[in-house]
């Protein structure tokens, strides 16, 4: 049996099941005026949505097991594996919160975020890699899975916060709140843009190679997207012309560290470009802002409920994140490197995430930051997690940069 083929198919099934679940949850809330009557409609479609979600989880579990069989280790060792596991934990956290609060609308937002995360994961090389000596420890699974579980809960907290914001300010015109909310959604669209361009160029088989010197070594950077930005002092070895472009338009600034920095920076540029185009198309088609577009979906949501869900998800995630992202991380660091804390960028960003959510909790519990303020905090928390996931691996080199 070709296990790798099986694994790929399981991943593909997971992806489509999550997409389907997202669609079904959206239908459950927007199609209330259908002939069956509101209550029956919501009950019927939300049940279908959660069933699809469960089947998706089942497939992802099988995917993980298959990958363990192939690679001999739990798949949390590179960027693809971590990001796809994060999509898994987002879905798990959603299921838990769904069963506490039975809010269908949460599914219509949380499942698409999980889909985006899984698609984002698939942009990275999917080969099963052998473990480097530093990662050969059972703490790899314990530390990474627990951290991802905590972050999954935080992401669901963000989703509920987003629902609150769309409900509260999404329909407003000309307010700062509405503008910032739209900006947040634009960043999400850019992430989608990045995923779509990656797949488009990968299907088209685009390839370019640029040689440059990095710390005294001659290196070749392989591009899968047309290089708008090339490495510092790079020389084009091979490049398929793209729209008449045969050379990178400019070189990456030298302060960007890491041998792959220019290629990654190139991806960011493509995300911004394609995301902006995608956003422009949505605006042209809908003739309204995305937040206005989404507002009808959430207009029946109780603000108090959205606020409580957001807080609850974060309250559930906080101890788990503390355990996985800090305590287990410290135990492992002690065992692998002989110091439980070394101010490695990724460690520092885990601390920043933790400090931020503790500020969130103190503001909420002691200073009465509820509702709007609290929801904005949940959004910022998500931004920090994404910064940690994307930017730290992109721009800053450290012990954890495995992408």
């Amino acid at each position, binding site marked *: 049996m070709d296990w*790798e083929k099986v694994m790929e198919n399981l991943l593909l099934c997971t992806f489509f099941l999550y997409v389907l679940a997202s669609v079904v949850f959206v239908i459950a809330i927007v199609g209330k005026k259908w002939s069956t009557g509101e209550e029956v409609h919501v009950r019927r479609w939300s049940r279908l949505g959660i069933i699809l979600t469960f089947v998706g989880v089942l497939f992802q579990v099988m995917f993980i097991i298959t990958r363990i069989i*192939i*690679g*001999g280790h739990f798949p949390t060792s590179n960027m693809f594996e971590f990001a796809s596991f994060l999509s898994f934990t987002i879905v798990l956290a959603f299921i838990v919160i769904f069963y506490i*609060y039975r809010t*269908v*609308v949460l599914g219509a937002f949380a499942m698409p975020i999980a889909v985006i995360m899984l698609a984002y994961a698939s942009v990275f090389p999917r*080969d*099963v*890699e*052998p473990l*480097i*000596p*530093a990662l*050969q*420890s059972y*703490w790899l699974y314990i530390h990474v899975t627990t951290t991802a579980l905590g972050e999954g809960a935080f992401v669901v907290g963000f989703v509920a916060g987003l629902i609150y914001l769309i409900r509260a300010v999404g329909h407003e015109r000309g307010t700062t709140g509405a503008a910032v909310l739209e900006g947040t959604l634009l960043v999400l669209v850019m992430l989608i843009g990045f995923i779509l361009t990656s797949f488009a160029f990968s299907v088209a088989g685009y390839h370019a190679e640029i040689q440059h010197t990095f*710390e005294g070594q001659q290196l070749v950077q392989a591009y899968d997207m047309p290089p708008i930005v090339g490495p510092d002092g790079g020389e084009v070895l091979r490049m398929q012309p793209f729209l008449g472009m045969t050379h990178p338009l400019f070189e990456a600034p*030298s*302060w960007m*560290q890491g041998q792959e920095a220019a290629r990654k920076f190139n991806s960011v540029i493509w995300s911004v470009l394609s995301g902006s185009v995608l956003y422009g198309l949505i605006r042209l088609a809908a003739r309204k802002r995305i937040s206005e577009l989404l507002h009808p979906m959430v207009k*029946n949501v*109780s603000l*108090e*409920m959205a606020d*409580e869900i957001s*807080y*609850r998800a974060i*309250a*559930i995630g*906080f*101890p788990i994140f*503390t*355990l996985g992202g800090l*305590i287990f991380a*410290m135990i492992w660091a*002690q*065992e*692998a*490197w*002989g*110091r*439980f804390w*070394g*101010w*490695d*960028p990724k460690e*520092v960003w885990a*601390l*920043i995430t933790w*400090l*931020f959510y*503790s*500020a969130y909790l*103190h*503001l909420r519990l*002691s*200073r009465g930051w509820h509702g709007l303020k609290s929801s904005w905090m949940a959004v910022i928390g998500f931004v920090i997690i994404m910064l940690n996931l994307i930017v730290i691996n992109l721009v*800053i*080199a450290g012990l954890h940069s495995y992408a």
Partner: protein
Amino acid sequence: MENTKCVCGHNNPVGTILCEYCGKPLEEDQEANRPLEMRYEGKARRSQTYQTTWFDRVWNFFSSVKVAIVLILITLIASAIGTILPQERYIPSPDPAQFYVEHYGVWGEWFYKLGLSNMYDSWWYVTLLAMIGISLVVCSLDRVIPLYKALKNQQVTKDLSFISRQKVSHTLKVTEEERDALLDRLATQLQNRRFHVRREGHALLAEKGRISRWGPYINHIGLILFLFGALLRLVPGWYLDQFVWVREGEIAKVPELPYYVKNNKAEVEFYDPKELPGKKENAQPTVKQYKSDITLMRQDPRTGRLEPVSRKVIMVNHPMEYKGLMLFQSGFQPNQPLSLQMTVTDKKTKKSVGTFTVNLYHPKESYPLQNGGTVRILNYFPDFTMEGDRPATKSEFPNRPAFVFEVITPELKKGEKSWMIAQTNLDDINRNNRYDISMTGLQVVDQSGLMVRVDKSLPVIFFGAAVCMIGLVMGFYWQHRRVWLRWHEGRLYLGAHTNKNWFGLKREVEQIAERAGLKMSLTQYGQE
């Protein structure tokens, strides 16, 4: 603030919001229809009571959660700035001043000049952490004591305004005849839900999950212990962070400690291409594990001999531990020069007159030659460099060994000086010599880099972390729920409070009421 005597007759300390006895709000100017502010049970805190001496001022400063949050946010932003460029400990250069300018230009220069390149050890960052620590202690003490007192001395019969102004509240008509039976049924149902129920006259107080309220304080104690543990590293002898390279077969002194370590075998293991998943065309060998078989030794004070005390094959993630001393596999350098084989040739006869082998770490003073002569080493520079016009050595490691030999043979009247520098042609200098000395062999050896650590504060630190976790779990996975019931003049007043999950509380109270034969809808805010 002056009027602290409640209408119920209880005298409250200054700063009290809700009467300690009956719960009646003391400041009547609060909007009468809004839910009560229930934080810390409305008790006065020390920071609100005393405000005169300098101690009070410092106390009041650190007791503010606002100050704590500002401290957290400053630490957060500072920490983030420190990650923009790598910290000094991670740069591959011993000269940071030069490194930052070279690699990152003006930004790098300022990053270094502002001390951001070694930020996490700087006095101001450590001060920030210390202030957070003080804030943790003061904030907790300021709140936990009044909270403890308030929860310990709860009255069952609360003021009606206290009950009806709870966030979850309900009032319904109940006749005097129905009253006792209904209260009995409610009490039973509450007990079925694991509430502790206390009754007094026509009033009832049900409570569960009070443990949740102590969670934050236990968590804070854990954090304080953790920070204290980190501080303990400053105690002499409690913390050691050293590194030592040991060649295979050699014994090296463990820095700063009365131990020696022998490297029996240094080894690097590669993945078998067959066991690698996926197809790799450019099969570059991938390292599977670095191993060192090491023996830890201690000098016997009487005999002066080294006695082995522990032996282990250490690997990455599998250190050796002996009485608080930890040795970590942390570096591997293959094929390091160990010794050089030299051949001496008579230029006249073009015949070899002998060979000798110099150990680059422990060179002997002289070596006999097969023809009866000797070679003396006049000078040895393991890591040759020129300092001005004087030869010198950069380090004790044989990166570029250089020798000044003296050849003494029966054929020569006096010894002949001969230079030899690795990777350098010195034919010019040695032109007039009769004997030529050249390198004819090199022996190499692998060496292991061992990280040497002592950290006696680890138990305190991890105990602190464990306490912190227990506190978090108590605080976030338990909920403190209370229900007050009071019958007064034909009406039953119900109020309920929780520290989190209001939705769950409302649902639970509704279910309890329903089982006791009451219909009430508490979800007045209208969820979906």
